[in-house]
């Protein structure tokens, strides 16, 4: 039975990027090259990973928002139906949540342990509850993985070629192509070192460029 690795190690961002890239490479070898965004995350989940998608009510509250969980034993990603309004209001949250769960599956689930000891049932969590406002290192890793999976570096590079990415209007157009939220897309460009968001909300090629223009003013 697949089991959750609660003691998963710290991973460098490059390692997480590589894992997400490898996941996509295997998917593409099986189903064909993804030539343009969006990355078909639901197809990857269902056809490649053979995980079930289940929309159901998950009990939570405003202090502890749970968008989804992954149940490795049932090979199932459960999306919180009671948070449907949020998914529909912030288009792209759903895609990111799916990718986040794939991150847990790829990084934090031991898929090779087919012998389950009875006592492990007691001490091992059966589900990975993904709380929207809780950020431990496992959640951070799953987020980073999700970004790399649905906004792969090479694809982002292709899409931003010749586009002025320091203009918010263009970022909005690009995030629609990737099917993600503006926050997710902006963060991804920051992660990749393509933009810097200044404290006053403007976009620059780097922090240095921002400081340089301050000096000029």
């Amino acid at each position, binding site marked *: 039975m697949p089991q959750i690795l609660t003691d998963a190690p710290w991973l460098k961002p490059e390692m997480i990027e590589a894992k997400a890239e490898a996941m996509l490479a295997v998917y593409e070898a099986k189903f064909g090259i993804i030539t343009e965004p969006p990355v078909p995350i*639901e*197809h990857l989940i*269902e*056809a490649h990973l053979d995980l*079930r*998608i*289940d*929309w*159901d009510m998950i009990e939570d509250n405003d202090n502890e928002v749970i968008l989804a969980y992954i149940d490795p034993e049932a090979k*199932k990603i459960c999306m919180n*139906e009671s948070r*449907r309004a949020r998914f529909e209001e912030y288009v792209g949250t759903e895609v990111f949540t799916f990718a986040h769960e794939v991150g847990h599956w790829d990084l934090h689930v031991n898929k090779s342990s087919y012998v389950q000891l009875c006592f492990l049932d007691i001490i091992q969590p059966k589900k990975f509850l993904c709380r929207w406002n809780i950020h431990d290192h496992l959640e951070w890793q799953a987020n980073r993985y999700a970004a790399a999976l649905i906004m792969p570096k090479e694809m982002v590079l292709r899409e931003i070629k010749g586009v002025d990415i320091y203009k918010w209007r263009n970022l909005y157009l690009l995030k629609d192509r990737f099917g993600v939220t503006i926050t997710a897309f902006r963060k991804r460009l920051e992660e990749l070192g393509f933009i810097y968001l200044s404290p006053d909300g403007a976009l620059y090629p780097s922090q240095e460029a921002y400081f340089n223009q301050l000096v000029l003013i």
Partner: protein
Amino acid sequence: MTFGDKIRELRKRKRLSQRDLAERVGIDFTYLSKIENNKVPPPSDTVIRKLSRELESDSEELLMLAAKVSQQDLRKAVAQDPRVGILFRKLQSRELTDEQLRQMLEIIEVGGKGNATDTY
């Protein structure tokens, strides 16, 4: 294989998401998800036929998987004609060969196009 498993398998084969298929059939995608995960009973005959059309599958097979013959329907049929009960018992006890079953289905299908009572 359950009805839900079959729908999921057919949908995956057609490379449709739950949202895509639900939209085409005119049901909510969360309802489709519950059907696929066997959390609710199979939907109505009408929805099953729409699913079968979209998934290009045999509607009779889907209806059979959905066990769309209720106990109530069965009781009613037996009350109308006791021979239905005899036939059902024979089917249950597997006294009929595959060939006999095939012939019976053929007769029923042909009869279904005309007067159903003629088939007895």
